[in-house]
């Protein structure tokens, strides 16, 4: 299980792991505009970390996509970090690519798989000129 301490530590270092879009990171507190947590791996109650808004879901990203990201990713900017299952990341990465964004950091986590799904931490940042801030 990913603890609160792990989370704070990870969100602090995430920008340093990124390989691109540094200008986008510089615009956001702690380098992130929001953090996405998959409750299958991080079941702690919802809370914002270091003033970074946290969105939670449990495997199915439909709500997060339709209610938040689909709108956010139409506009420039918005660096999103996440700790999710690799299955959810595949969906998000595919959607991100479609919207001119890229996974710029990806780290497989040591926590155990759940139902064959491995946890991974990642950062998705604007990449295409149409969405870079």
């Amino acid at each position: 299980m990913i603890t609160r301490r792990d989370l704070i530590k990870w969100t602090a270092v995430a920008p340093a792991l990124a390989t691109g879009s540094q200008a986008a990171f510089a615009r956001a507190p702690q380098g992130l505009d929001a953090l996405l947590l998959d409750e299958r791996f991080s079941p702690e109650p919802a809370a914002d970390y270091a003033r970074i808004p946290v969105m939670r879901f449990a495997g199915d990203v439909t709500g997060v996509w339709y209610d938040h990201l689909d709108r956010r990713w139409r506009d420039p900017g918005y660096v999103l970090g996440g700790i999710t299952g690799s299955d959810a990341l595949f969906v998000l990465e595919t959607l991100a690519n479609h919207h001119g964004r890229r996974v710029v950091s990806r780290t497989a986590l040591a926590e155990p798989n759940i139902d064959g799904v491995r946890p991974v931490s990642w950062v998705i940042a604007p990449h295409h000129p149409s969405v870079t801030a």
Partner: protein
Amino acid sequence: MSVLPPDMDAAGFAALLDELRGAVGADWIWSGDTDMFPYRDSFSPVWNTGEERHASAAVAPENVEQVSAVVRIANRHRVPLFPISTGKNFGYGGPSPNVNGSVVLDLKRMNRVLEVNEARNFCLVEPGVSYFDLYRHVEERGLKVMLDVPDPGWGSPIGNSLERGVGYTMPHFRDHFGAHCGMEVVLPDGEIMRTGMGALPGSDTWQEYPYGFGPDPAGLFAQGNFGVVTKMGFRLLPLPEYYRTGLITVRKRRDLVKLIAHVNYLSDSGMVSEVRFASPLSTWMGDPDFLALATKAGGPSDTEMDAAAETFGLPAWAVDLQFLGPQAATLAQWEYAKDRILSDIVGAEAIDGDHFKLPASEEQLENTTQPYASGVRRRAALGVPSLGIWEIVRDDGHVGFFPVIPRDGEAVFEAQRVLGDAQREFPLPPYFSAITAPLFWHTHTFQMVFAPSVKHDDPEHNAMVHRAMKKMVAVAAELGWGDYRASPIYQDDVSATYSFNNHVLRRFHEQLKDAVDPDGIIAPGRGGIWPRRFRS
């Protein structure tokens, strides 16, 4: 893996990209390994092998005039284009082309919902519109129409229908190509054509009468390579007032024959929405003895299966029925279905399901109140796009073989037996066994599913899956069960099985292709149709 278009050197490729930049803007051209990674087929069983198909570049025009310009440039350079709408055709090739070095014509920027007409029940969209986009358009305006969405719903109505994709509501809307009405197409020479009433200047019936006058070429653009579809209309279901479900079970294995005949009647009469057949015995597939029985070579006997059902205290088959319409009509249809089936099949039982007014609440969409276990995915059943299906995708995706089989119980038993025996040599889960139920997605036919997973880090496993796919396509075809949709790496195999009269259908398509696109500018090889330039 950087590749060049066929018959082109690096200098020619650079000149091509320069011209394309001039047509669509420098920001909307991509090439090179990193930028082209999203255009690989991430579900490919030939991932990282010599058989994987790679595009050389991608170009994203903003409108039909730019599409036409791109097609004319491609003609001048004799470069094949591979059009995609949103590129989410996973399991069937995703955004990857048939021919190495093709330039992906990515239509994602053409994302306008041009019209949704709730009085006449149609929509007109561009290829970059996703089902989510269309749903949001309808929801935000409170329009009283129901979409029919695939699962997942991130693809585009145009892309999905051109692949002959399916949804999960009423029969004539589930066949997405069948529900289309009118299209605009950029032809291989760059000319812009409209089909049906769209060919008549001043017509206001483009989305109401699909044929116009004379031959209708619309079918050529589904799973074909005769043009780039840039607009498409679809018929929409008026938002039903009410939704109702019910479950019917039958005790004996052979009861499936009668059950299917009754459901055929209900469906073809327009009384039911999508139905889901299932075997409650599937819950015992974890039991080694029952697994051995259900997957027995040559198939188990009816007596053996009925004895197992008796032992477990379970019915042999169940069918989930769904009804859409006025409240009184859905109740009457459910009562009629119960009476019709229970009076004819000894031991059949019925369970009343959920029922509520539409549109559904979030809780109702979550499907928490159904009084029995159900395979129905409620969002899709009510035309609400979702990404939830990804929860069941494992490893690095899967391939897909969906043979079309007769909507007949005896045919189901034969398919279980033949395809079950065919897959025995492969170490895969039993996709076909004595409990495999038919899928009733397309309006008037059944399919079954073979979708083994692929693993990017296990080439031996992928090679086995690749062999299994080819074998299943061939074995099924011997019995007349053809695949309905295939990834580029399997399209020639599938096309070859549709071989009546010395492959005259394919030869006819080739004649057409040679006439309108001899250099293979539009997706050569798609649908198994190769122009003269590539046939050698």
